């Protein structure tokens, strides 16, 4: 404790230098935070994707939707526990750039809890949707964007026409839902029964089914069984588990992971070298002062600890600032990469990394300071 003023003086001896070291470490750790956040975000997204939910769509992209009548047949495929479905219609609010994607669903508890990591919805919201045929559930994002509130009536324009030829669909906002993926901010939930009855074309069809496998380990086998069952029907299907498609998405980012690791190594090397040089410079400039300290009776260990603590303090403070900076940028980066997150373990790694950087870079200058020969050091000043 009694060394605190000494430490403080040492840190602020050259304010510009300390500030620049601080900034450099801060920027480096901000980059670490963003890159690691990206990686853990993706890993976590995969781990959280339910392995038992299968996505059943038309076998060929762009093919006509699947008939609703397939539902019962799908339920009878061995290994399928439950089935739900949705039908999206693309619409816009006031002008074509303000896209709203209306998902027609069955407001059941199955649908509400199908993707617990993705969709957070209160039972009350789904109950309200069940009660109001023309109801929709909206996200806070879209509410803010267009100034919508629960209780409002909103007219949406869609190229999916109604039976009376109208392109305008009027919905009543009856509740809120939350999507963890901000990309889904433009989604709203509506009643499938209303949409299907009101639309002019494709009546009695759905965009895709969600099938829940009774045993997650059998998901792949159940997928194949479903596709096999519909292979020779009028509407062949393609089924894959959410987990599988998340893995494929990640894999498709290919060598980005390798790139992240290489970049971080490069940053670390440059950073350590830079801080080490600056510490060396500091110790060199302070040689006379350190010599005086030793003359006053400070032993080599204390001098070393003093120098080391200085650099550790700067590095930890700077790494915390950097991680905080990264955390602040997450909402902006989420536009490009979904699901960024900074779990505790990354913070801990960051701080440990900072200590490591400080220790490596202080080792040489610290030893030099500790081994200082008083007579030579004082003589150097002349």
């Amino acid at each position, binding site marked *: 404790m009694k060394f605190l003023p000494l430490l403080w003086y040492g840190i602020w001896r050259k304010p510009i230098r300390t500030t620049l*070291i601080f900034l450099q470490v801060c*920027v480096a750790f901000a980059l670490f935070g963003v890159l690691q956040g990206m990686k853990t975000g993706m890993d976590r997204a995969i781990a959280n994707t339910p392995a038992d939910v299968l996505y059943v769509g038309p076998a*060929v992209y762009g093919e006509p939707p699947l008939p609703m009548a397939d539902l019962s047949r799908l339920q009878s495929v061995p290994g399928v526990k439950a089935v739900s479905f949705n039908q999206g219609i693309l619409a816009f609010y006031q002008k074509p750039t303000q896209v709203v994607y209306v998902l027609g669903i069955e407001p059941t508890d199955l649908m509400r809890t199908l993707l617990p990591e993705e969709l957070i919805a209160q039972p009350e919201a789904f109950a309200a949707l069940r009660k109001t045929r023309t109801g929709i559930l909206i996200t806070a994002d879209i509410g803010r964007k267009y100034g919508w509130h629960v209780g409002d009536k909103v007219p949406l324009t869609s190229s999916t026409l109604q039976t009376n030829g109208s392109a305008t669909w009027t919905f009543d906002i009856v509740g809120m839902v939350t999507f963890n993926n901000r990309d889904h901010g433009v989604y709203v939930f509506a009643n499938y029964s209303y949409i299907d009855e009101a639309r002019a074309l494709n009546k009695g069809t759905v965009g895709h089914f969600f099938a829940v496998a009774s045993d997650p380990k059998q998901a792949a086998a159940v997928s194949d069984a479903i596709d096999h069952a519909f292979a*020779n029907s009028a509407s062949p299907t393609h089924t894959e588990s959410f987990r599988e498609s998340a893995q494929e998405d990640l894999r498709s980012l290919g060598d980005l992971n390798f*790139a992240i690791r290489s970049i971080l190594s490069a*940053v670390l090397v440059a950073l350590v*070298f830079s801080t080490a*040089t*600056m510490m060396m410079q500091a110790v060199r400039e302070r040689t006379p002062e350190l010599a005086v300290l030793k003359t006053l009776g400070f032993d080599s260990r204390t001098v070393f600890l003093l120098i080391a603590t200085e650099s550790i303090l700067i590095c930890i403070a700077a790494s915390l600032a950097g991680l905080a900076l990264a955390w602040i940028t997450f909402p902006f980066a989420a536009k490009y990469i979904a699901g960024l997150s900074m779990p505790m373990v990354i913070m801990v790694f960051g701080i440990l990394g900072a200590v490591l950087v400080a220790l490596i870079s202080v080792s040489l200058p610290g030893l030099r300071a500790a081994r200082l020969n008083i007579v030579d050091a004082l003589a150097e000043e002349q």
Partner: protein
Amino acid sequence: MDFLKQLGMLLRMNLLGLLQRLGLACTTVIGVTCAVGVLVSMLAMSVGARRAAMGNVRPDRASVLNVDAVEPGRSNMPKDQAELIANLPGIRRNSRGQPIAVPEVAVYVQARRKDSGNAVGFPMIGAGAGLTDYAPELHLTAGRMFRPGLPEIIASNYCAHRYQNFSVGNEQLIGGGEWLVVGNFDLGHTTGSCFVYADANSVLSAFRRSSYNEVNVMLQSPAAFDELVNAIKSNPQLPVRVEHEAELAEATEQQVNGLLNFVSYFVAAVLAVAATIGAANSLYALVDSRRRQHATLLAIGFTGAPIIASTLSEAILLAIPGALIGAGLAWLFFNGLSSSLLEFSFHLAVTPYLAALGIGWALGMGVISGLLPAVRAARVPVTVALRTK
């Protein structure tokens, strides 16, 4: 004249002095090396991806799409229109005198990866007669061409290597029917993605479709494009538009490169900031160690300008080797390396342009890091500096 003379002397003095402060000099060099190395390596991915996507593009090829189609996949081209298009002026004819106009229909279907067994999508392209005339870069490496009217496909070698059951003789279940793989091929520079060709009529009937997506034409010359456009404009029966092959390839390429460029520039910019700060710090230390020198020089009649200029030049001179080393390392380690992104693989390419870009960035880092230390060097209070150590 005086300015240049003073600058020259100062620079020589500074550079000789650097030898005693190698650590500080290296900080700048290593920082810039890292920033430029990362920038060049990551952009080498974009350049490589672009080369793979755009390498086959020829100025004398064009695609005819439906007039209001936003992308080829959403275009709709009825058979009768395709026939009319084939007979328009400006289209080259093959050795047998037939126009090189190939109707195409593309469907997206799934295959399974060899390594994970996971499903992945790939385009199956149904092509009409004349594919080999239209795409002379299509080179069969095994087997033969598909025959019209039969459920036969030829698959790119990428499919054969990465996905299950794409070797000659294998059968694939696509769209509810069995398709026989009769050949494998390479397509010029586009060797990094999976796609298969089949006969257009076989695909249309297997997928219960009645119209193509587009008609690809080989023009008599790049200049014949306008002739074709005018002929289409004057024919009210054809609600279609023509696009250069390059424009369509560009749109596809943007999907991969948009992400790559964003990540590259973002990361490189952050590294450049860190390197600039580090360089500024070491320059401050250098300048501080020369306080007495500068004070003496000012006292004997040097002006501030050459001191500022010499410090800035020093910063730039330190940044340039960093840029060269960085670009050199990127070339050494990554040039030609194969990489993949979004089911699309390509070779990294470190080009002279990228090296020049790296040097440009380094100059920027040098100037910015040198500015404040340079001003500080010239502002030494002469009396104080001379009196104290």
